[in-house]
């Protein structure tokens, strides 16, 4: 039997009872969507439609509509891909790694964070998909399926193929993990619908809950499954960004060919992911009045993770520079010198300011417990992490080996459109999730109500 201390930090404020949890969380699902929800959803749809137009133009005319040239063959597409994958990492960290460490503050934020993971990975996967030019042939090209060229099999030595497996496994395992958590909560909504006499809703949520009844035996198996899934997801999430970093690290391009990349990318991923979780949750808690469940204490803990991972990223930046000098390889040295002082100096220093300098403000308790400051700094971190990927990718290749090939990258409207497409997709999914699914894991929060709820 698990023994836990009775002295616990308050994780749920407002003197909530177990029944209050059901009511407060299910209310969003049962009520009509509010006007602010429609407005936000509408804006997301507009972005999605404009983005879909960009995608259509790309599919119709080919990858030439993007600003890529023969020197800079990878730019915004892979920058955005890595950025979105990175954002996804916080969800798995919260739900799997914090579960293994028995951190109970994860319970009121894991649902939304995992949803964010799933939507972010969909957005990420769209970039390599569209970059292939013929999206519909993607599966045929990327998976080891028998084909009429031999069969000529896919190249299992390529990190790009590892990425296909890593991202698709990550997506499907995260989806299963998230859905497992939703099953008991769908049953709550079903039974509330039965009580209210909404039988159609009850039937839909019953199907979604797979006929859940909450039997002790099922709970026992359920907990066992959750623990193993957490154990599987933990190395999985670390492997995913490691493999993403292999896309660069296994090449021989100066600036990419760096052994520090795997841990550096994973830390950066968690860093940007927590910033996005904060951005989404600060809005969600306000709109859905969940201040008692997502407290300042939760925000502060997430900010502490941001400062830790941000500092790891900062150390990695400095280490890269040190090794470039210490290694005494001219091309390598130039790549880094050019990064900080060349034509892309502004991107480099934006990255440094946003990722290394500004998060240090979270050392002050006043700042990390202030919601507005958190919201602004989280947005800055997300901008900084986008610049990090842009800097790594574009500054390393825009100065080719022959000075006659030196060039710059200029995004076209379709590069921008493709990025906007993913924002539209992400927020459309997120708002649908927030309306139709319980945004907080009710079963888990109920299990800690007795020990961590603020007493009246």
């Amino acid at each position, binding site marked *: 039997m698990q023994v836990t201390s009775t002295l616990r930090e308050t994780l749920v404020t407002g003197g909530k009872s177990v029944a209050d949890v059901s009511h407060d969380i299910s209310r969003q699902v049962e009520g009509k969507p509010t006007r602010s929800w429609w407005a936000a959803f509408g804006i997301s749809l507009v972005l999605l439609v404009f983005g879909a137009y960009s995608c259509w133009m790309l599919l119709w005319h080919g990858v030439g509509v993007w600003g890529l040239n023969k020197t800079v063959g990878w730019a915004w597409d892979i920058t955005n891909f890595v950025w979105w994958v990175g954002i996804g990492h916080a969800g798995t960290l919260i739900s799997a790694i914090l579960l293994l460490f028995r951190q109970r503050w994860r319970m009121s934020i894991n649902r939304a964070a995992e949803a964010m993971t799933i939507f972010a990975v969909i957005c990420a996967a769209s970039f390599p998909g569209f970059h292939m030019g013929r999206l519909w042939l993607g599966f045929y090209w990327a998976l080891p399926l028998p084909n009429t060229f031999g*069969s000529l099999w896919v190249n299992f030595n390529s990190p790009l193929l590892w990425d296909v497996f890593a991202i698709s496994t990550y997506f499907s395992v995260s989806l299963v993990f998230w859905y497992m958590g939703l099953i008991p909560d769908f049953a709550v909504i079903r039974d509330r619908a039965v009580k209210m006499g909404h039988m159609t809703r009850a039937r839909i949520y019953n199907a979604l809950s797979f006929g859940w009844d909450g039997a*002790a035996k099922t709970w026992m198996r359920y907990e066992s499954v959750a623990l193993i899934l957490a154990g599987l997801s933990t190395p999985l999430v670390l492997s995913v960004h490691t493999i993403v970093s292999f896309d660069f690290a296994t090449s021989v391009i100066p600036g990419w060919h760096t052994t520090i990349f795997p841990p550096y990318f994973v830390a950066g991923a968690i860093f940007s992911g927590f910033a996005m979780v904060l951005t989404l949750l600060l809005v969600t808690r306000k709109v859905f009045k969940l201040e008692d469940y997502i407290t300042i204490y939760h925000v502060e803990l997430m900010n502490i993770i941001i400062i830790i991972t941000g500092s790891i990223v900062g150390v990695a930046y400095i280490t890269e520079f040190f090794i470039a000098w210490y290694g005494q390889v001219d091309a390598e040295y130039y790549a880094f010198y050019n990064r900080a002082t060349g034509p892309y100096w502004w991107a480099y220093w934006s990255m440094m300011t946003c990722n290394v300098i500004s998060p240090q403000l979270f050392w002050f308790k006043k700042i990390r417990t202030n919601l507005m400051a958190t919201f602004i700094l989280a947005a800055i971190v997300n901008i900084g992490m986008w610049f990090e990927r842009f800097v790594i990718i574009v500054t390393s290749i825009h100065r080719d080996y022959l000075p006659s090939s030196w060039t710059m990258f200029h995004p076209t409207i379709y590069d921008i459109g493709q990025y906007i497409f993913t924002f539209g997709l992400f927020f459309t999914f997120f708002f649908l999730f927030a309306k139709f699914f319980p945004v907080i894991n009710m079963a888990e929060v109920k299990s800690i109500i007795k020990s961590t709820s603020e007493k009246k």
Partner: protein
Amino acid sequence: MSEQKNYLVGIFNDEDVLLDAVHGIREKGVKIEEVYSPFPVHGLDEALGYRRSRLPIAAFLFGMTGTILALSTQIWMLGFDWPMIIGGKNHASIPPFIPVTFEFTVLLSAFGMVGTFFIVSDLKPYKWPKLHDIRCTDDKHVMAINLGSNKLSKNDISDILKKAGAEEVNEKSY
């Protein structure tokens, strides 16, 4: 309906009272059919005398299947079916096959285990569960005792339940 089943359903409000009650009631020789809770209660499975779940074994077996399948597929495809020299390495060079092998292991393990969970727990979208009390997904713990499988009389069990801390004791027949 072949034969009617009669149940005594005890409603508990607090998980610690419930745990003590389960111990006490089982000691008195009353058979508890099942307890339904809105959230997992730690120690309840042991109190009810359930054996530890064997799902981790299923996860391991599915995972091993994934490892073997992924590794042998890659070795066969690149090493034997269409050997190619890539980067001057051996045809079937093991280290680059590890990432895909790992991912496939995780994939099969997770899906296999969750699939097994759905099957053994009899969870399916078209099933409407038989709830003894609808509050069991909201805030009450519901203990179902099948009178047919108990020797003690209804009144005796009802007294035991009330003494153990049940808020309500209801009779249900199906």
